């Protein structure tokens, strides 16, 4: 049967309490624990003197191989290895180059909330209209991945007196998660959209946008 240290002794080991603060019945256990830690070998470790030479030999080989590749396509290689280019930008640009060949057309007529875009915000964007019915609300905003979850950045406009709130945004290609924020406090999913768990005990609504094909959902 395993013997566990008392929680107070563990706090002692963590440095969150002193030996003298422990009750008398735990003193022996605490001293055992302290002896355990005290016996640890904390001496430094130094590696062999040849480590630097071995590392630099490999590094020089890799550098030489890199120069060969760069000579094959110097412009592309420099751009791809430039420190300021995050790796995901490379993938996104490559994807956009392929998708740009797809012919643009408006969203499906069966989708009641899609808006046929007259002009796009950017070549890789699609206009999407968000609608929420909230008759009693005084203020409705939209927060999501497209506005860095800023609950104050994207207010909806109230249309008429029926309690319908709307906003139209140009969204970049990809999938976006969002929710409506009612009166600055209540996070509400879009009843017309699919949802996923948000990892905080709630749900997020999802809109997927594909270039040339409009809003997927």
């Amino acid at each position, binding site marked *: 049967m*395993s*013997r*566990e*240290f008392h*929680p107070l002794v*563990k706090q002692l*080991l*963590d440095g969150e309490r002193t030996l003298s603060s422990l009750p008398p019945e735990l003193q022996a256990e605490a001293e055992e*624990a302290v*002896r*355990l*830690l*005290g*016996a*640890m*070998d*904390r*001496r*430094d*470790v*130094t*590696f*062999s003197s040849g*480590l*630097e030479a*071995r*590392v*630099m030999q*490999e*590094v*020089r080989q*890799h*550098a030489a191989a890199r120069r060969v590749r760069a000579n094959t396509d110097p412009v592309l290689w420099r751009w791809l*290895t*430039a*420190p300021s*280019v995050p*790796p995901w930008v490379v993938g996104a640009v490559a994807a956009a180059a392929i998708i740009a060949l797809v012919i643009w057309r408006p969203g499906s007529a069966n989708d009641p909330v899609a808006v046929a875009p007259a002009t796009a915000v950017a070549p890789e964007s699609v206009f999407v209209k968000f609608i929420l019915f909230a008759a009693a609300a005084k203020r409705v905003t939209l927060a999501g991945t497209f506005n860095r979850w800023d609950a104050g950045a994207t207010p909806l406009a109230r249309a008429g007196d029926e309690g319908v709130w709307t906003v139209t945004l140009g969204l970049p290609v990809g999938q976006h998660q969002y929710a409506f924020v009612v009166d600055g406090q209540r996070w509400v999913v879009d009843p017309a959209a699919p949802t996923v768990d948000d990892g905080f005990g709630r749900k997020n609504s999802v809109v997927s946008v594909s270039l040339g094909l409009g809003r997927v959902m």
Partner: protein
Amino acid sequence: MERTAVGPPDGVIVQAVLSGDVEQYAVLVRRYQDRYARYATRMLGSVDAAEDAVQDALVRAYDQLARCRDPNNFAGWFFLILRNRCFAERRRDQRFAALDGVPDVPAEENTEASLERSERGRGIERALQTLTPEQREVFVLKHMEELSYEEIAGRVGTTVAALKMRMHRAYDRLRELLEEMQ
């Protein structure tokens, strides 16, 4: 051996290397090759394995130098690469690692008390190698490298609560293993 960095800041060296001056990388190698030697040795249970891991991690750090987001903190970034390497090594080899790297007590310290500490120390080393990599890491970083839970959490990207849970399991496991060895 003095470990405080002398010479240009890491960021300057990194930029020089990225600009094509490969030999400058040796400066970073000399600065950091032993910085995490103790951590890697305790994680892998062997000085030889640790040296291999550090060599491999230093080469990988060169290969991926363009991705270092904060060149002035090359050490922290290199630590992540080494950490990944140590964890990958442990996943590949789940068997108990030999303690070929634990140095003996120097002759002038060979008192009875120090021999007893040494024996207990070897026992702890053996027990450490049977912990999970996550448990062993938090134990080494807190009790050997003397970092706080908050510092460790910021370094490895987890919560203080998760670290404490791992640590407390490590304490119990160590106690259990040491009692079995007696």
